[in-house]
């Protein structure tokens, strides 16, 4: 692998990111989400729900979900960008290897989650006087787990898109939400029906949200939850990286130019 080529692709997506229209998109949705969920959770807390930390729990969960969303988005939407701008053939007729492109989009996603995290934390503090870093150092491993899960979802839907092309582009936005109900983002996994709980405990994201809620409710950092999330992420990531590579090879057999 060549670091120069990885850096080249990284720059390609950062040049795109630096345009005003794209910057607005990066900040617009988190702002709307935080405002809506923040107001809702403050209202629930004031109505004496019996859960004293409901506002911080929901808003921290929201930020974690945005991290997964951002990691997924940087893979899927960057694939679509190449289709839409008829640049896919340009990229893969150069010495660029698929593994280098994959590394680049993972790095782009990982770098942008800090922008998302910083911006969201600041906004939550300004609007609701709540500190999502209350969770302490545990935020770091949880962010890493959510980023890994975002890559899993991203390469899963990306693999479908590189084979079927633009007719599957809705996956870029839809796929993460397929996992959201079972990940118990805003409610405990016990709120799900038994079959839903069974699915939920197979997802790495569920362990992060459960662990986060446990800490914010005064419990300790759960090494069990963290390790389960890590192992499941590694297992799924290995599978989807293989799937994405195979789908790309299959797509190349049909011709990459048909995707543009």
């Amino acid at each position, binding site marked *: 692998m*060549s670091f*120069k*080529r990885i*850096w*080249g*692709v990284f*720059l*390609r997506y950062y*040049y*795109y990111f630096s*345009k005003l*229209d*794209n910057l607005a998109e990066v900040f617009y949705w988190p702002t709307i989400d935080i405002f809506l969920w923040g107001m809702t959770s403050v209202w629930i807390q004031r109505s004496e729900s019996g859960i004293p930390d409901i506002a911080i729990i929901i808003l921290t969960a929201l930020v974690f979900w945005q991290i997964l969303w951002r990691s997924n988005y940087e893979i899927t939407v960057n694939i679509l*960008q190449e289709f839409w*701008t*008829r*640049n896919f*053939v*340009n*990229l*893969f*007729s*150069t*010495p*660029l*290897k698929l593994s280098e492109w994959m590394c680049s989009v993972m790095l782009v996603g990982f770098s942008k989650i800090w922008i998302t995290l910083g911006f969201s934390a600041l906004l939550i503090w300004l609007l609701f006087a709540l500190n999502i870093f209350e969770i302490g150092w545990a935020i770091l491993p949880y962010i890493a787990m959510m980023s890994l899960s975002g890559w899993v979802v991203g390469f899963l839907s990306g693999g479908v898109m590189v084979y079927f092309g633009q007719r599957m582009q809705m996956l870029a936005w839809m796929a993460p939400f397929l996992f959201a109900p079972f990940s118990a983002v805003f409610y405990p996994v016990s709120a799900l029906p038994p079959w839903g709980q069974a699915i939920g405990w197979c997802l790495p994201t569920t362990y992060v949200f459960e662990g986060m809620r446990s800490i914010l409710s005064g419990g300790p950092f759960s090494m069990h939850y963290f390790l389960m999330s890590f192992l499941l992420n590694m297992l799924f990531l290995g599978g989807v990286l293989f799937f994405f590579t195979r789908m790309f*090879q299959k797509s*190349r*057999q*049909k*011709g*990459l*130019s048909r995707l*543009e």
Partner: protein
Amino acid sequence: MSILSVRDLHKTYLGKKPFKAVQGISFDLNEGEILGLLGPNGAGKTTTIQMLMSTLTPTKGDIFYFGKDFLKHRSEILQYVTFASTYVSLPWSLTIEQNLDVYGRLFCQSPKDFGKRCDLLLERFGILSKKRSRISELSSGQITRLMLVKAFMIGPKIVLLDEPTASLDPDIAHDVIQFILEQREKEKVSILFTSHNMAEVSEVCDRVLFLRKGKIYADDLPQNLAKRAAQSRIELIIAEGMEKALNVAKKLNMEAIADHRCLKLKLDEAQIASFLSSLADAKVNYSGIEIIQPTLEDFFLKAAGASDEL
């Protein structure tokens, strides 16, 4: 010396009705050679080019660049092979400068290496002043020229050009052709060239491969292909002696048509001198003469509609 060898290349698109797009083609591209790839729509030109730049996997056959197997050394080989086409573009929201910066880095070159060369090429193609413009602000002709800058900026050894002058005004297309010829002369760049402009192919290509139904139908010099397809034509303005002229043509077994004062004939190039000599002997006076040579377009039209053997 051959720097690209294609051997028994096949591509079959699978599906309910499998389609054999390329059926066992073999050819070589030599150093500094400009090889034209011609053929009607569906002949297999684009499929072949796509396989040569690795965006399409062959069903069977081998591609060797610089003596190395393309399948095994793809990334290493593509360091010296570039591509330009009218039918691809670049990210619209990035500027010319940003796009070329990214592209140069994909070839492991630093901006120091390719920056000066980029500026020279942008100036040569008249788009240096647009360097900081977004691609979305450029005309289709300017994007086509930018694709050429992209193809030549890294100092390639082989360039695959898919209709590089489509969408260009004639004066700019002429300049592009001159540039391609210069690159061959100065840098010894080898070029695989497709175009629908037959005059352009005749001017620029050293050799032409004509594809038809996925097979190589002809492989020859452009002028030889033209001669294989059609006879020369002569048009004479007869001042005096049209009857005598028709008799001369009849004696020499030539097909002639009299159209008012104009005599039109089809004949082989070698027969022209003897025909004119016979007209002089028969005391035929003519006030004007036009000799029309067969062109590559004649060959294209004939070959596109012909049976499998020429």
